[in-house]
């Protein structure tokens, strides 16, 4: 008995050690960045390095907000939120249609949806920039929203398609017999039951849109449409790296995403469909 117990204990200890190592590996650079953002400029790159700041200062945070960070963050929020809403709206309709209806061209649609996912975004930059310029959408937030949505829509369609398939079809049949049209069934029954799927797909788009740098830096030039990642890049200037504001801005950009993940965590825990269907 004691042998089994000792074995279980050893296994647990080993698992804990591995998890701690992975956690450290992922979080240490962020911790380093955060602590360094509180140091005066001349102490950030001092040698030998020191983990804790001697005289913590918020000067770098003051600097980025003086540099109009709030406006760029607002841009990022607006562009990300609009992209999430647009992709979810279109993705839910498309995913539901593919999951539950037979129609001509359905299989082709499914295959081509997967196929476009494999096109690297870098190869689309030049053609899409040409397209945006021609339509007057270059250097606008709307242009970014449309691009982000277009890039992420195939993934979202597939995620939601898979989620809809996992829902018990009897509940939808019940809604139909109870007098709902297919559209009403989608809104009254399917979507409320799909919250975990919608949250997961939405976060996927959100992280992409919030973090995107390449597309934004290519498609925008003026400050009016500049998103926060592009604004951060400007601290890697021609005259050297401004580590303080750079790190402060990076930390600020992480905060909303972390907050949203923590807030929506419970929605990842599925089980919302429990109890409706027996068997």
């Amino acid at each position, binding site marked *: 008995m004691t042998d089994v117990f000792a074995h279980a204990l050893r296994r647990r200890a080993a698992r804990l050690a591995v998890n701690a190592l992975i956690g450290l590996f992922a979080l240490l650079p962020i911790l380093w960045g955060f602590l360094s953002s509180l140091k005066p400029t001349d102490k950030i790159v001092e040698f030998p390095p020191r983990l804790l700041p001697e005289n913590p200062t918020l000067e770098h945070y003051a600097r980025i907000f003086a540099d109009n960070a709030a406006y760029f963050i607002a841009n990022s929020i607006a562009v990300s939120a609009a992209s999430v809403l647009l992709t979810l709206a279109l993705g839910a309709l498309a995913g539901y249609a593919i999951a539950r209806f037979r129609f001509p061209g359905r299989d082709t649609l499914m295959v081509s949806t997967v196929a476009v996912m494999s096109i690297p975004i870098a190869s689309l930059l030049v053609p899409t920039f040409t397209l945006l310029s021609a339509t007057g959408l270059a250097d606008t937030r709307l242009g970014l929203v449309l691009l982000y949505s277009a890039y992420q829509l195939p993934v979202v369609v597939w995620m939601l398609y898979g989620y809809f398939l996992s829902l018990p079809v009897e509940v939808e049949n019940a809604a139909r017999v109870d*007098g709902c049209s297919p559209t009403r069934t989608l809104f009254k029954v399917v979507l409320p039951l799909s919250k975990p799927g919608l949250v997961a797909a939405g976060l996927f788009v959100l992280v992409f849109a919030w973090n995107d740098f390449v597309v934004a830096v290519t498609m925008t030039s003026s400050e009016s449409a500049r998103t926060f990642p592009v604004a951060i890049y400007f601290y890697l200037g021609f005259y050297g790296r401004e580590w303080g504001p750079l790190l402060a801005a990076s930390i600020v950009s992480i905060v909303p995403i972390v907050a949203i993940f923590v807030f929506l965590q419970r929605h990842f825990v599925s089980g919302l469909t429990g109890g*409706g269907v027996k068997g």
Partner: protein
Amino acid sequence: MSAVRFSGVSKNYGPVVALAGLDLDVAEGEFLSLLGPSGSGKSTTLGLLAGLIDADGGKIEIAGRDVTALPPEKRDLAMVFQNYALYPHLTVMENIAFPLEARKPKPDAGEIRRKVEVVAQALGIGALLARYPREISGGQQQRVALGRAMVRDPKVFLLDEPLSNLDARLRIRMRRDLKALHAQLGSTIVYVTHDQSEAMTLSSRIAIFNHGRLQQVAPPAEIYDRPANAFVANFVGDREMNFLDGELGVQGGVPRFVCAGGSVALHPSAAVLDAGKLRMGVRAEAIAPGRDKGDLRGTVALAELAGPDLFLTVRLADDTEIVARADPREFAAREGESVSLAFDPARIHLFDAETGIARHHGAA
């Protein structure tokens, strides 16, 4: 006017025939059970009626209106699903109110509330209205599903094996409740089940399906006493029917069924039959085992005491086995004993040996 009428309705899944040319009328106020083994076409029939499955051919009418091309939401039916299919994100109250909320024009909130409460009281779930489906028991979920169907006062109720997920005791209680409910509402009910005793006790008529074909539609007693073919005869009844192959013979002016193990006296009316290969079907309760005086003899291979009945599996001389029922207070036999079997001529069924179609029933 029929409440429901199927005319030549068929459905195929690729090469598989799910339903072949179904003609079936359901009368107003009738409780019709669709009975058959799985894959027989009974659930396909219900799905077609609900509009959840599209027919390949034929016509479906509800209350005289052709609904073949109508989607489910336009057919004004209520359905109770095998797994209840409650809306997990809605309370019991909202579940039952759902069909009313979907109605156009939507009734006002007070009226919806009143109707839901009346139904919930009738089903004894009035105290559960604020709960979610996952917070109530299986039997209660079943009642909510029934309530959701009743609240809309539909043209026809469709019930798809609604009792099969309940435990045995609860099932028998719900069966009684359903019967009382039907008597009280007087509505037309189409009920799918694979449980023949459920169909027997509940139905005004039973439609029996096999391999996508309707085998017989008749009241329970007629299904039991005058099965249209060997399949129906075998499918209904608590135990399988005994079948013996043989042919018609005459002895002393009385028709007899002659088989490998001997011969059995038939009802005099069987004399009108043409000669030819026949299959005799007899239920266990129409065969009385005894010490002598029977038509066939055999050895008891298995004796099963099931409450008030003693079932004896008797092996005949040619190794065929026959199950006979005895009253254990009057007759007892142990395995290995020799017994004789007396057949009740009035309860012998004769089927065509090739097609299985009924040729003669003892009682008529």
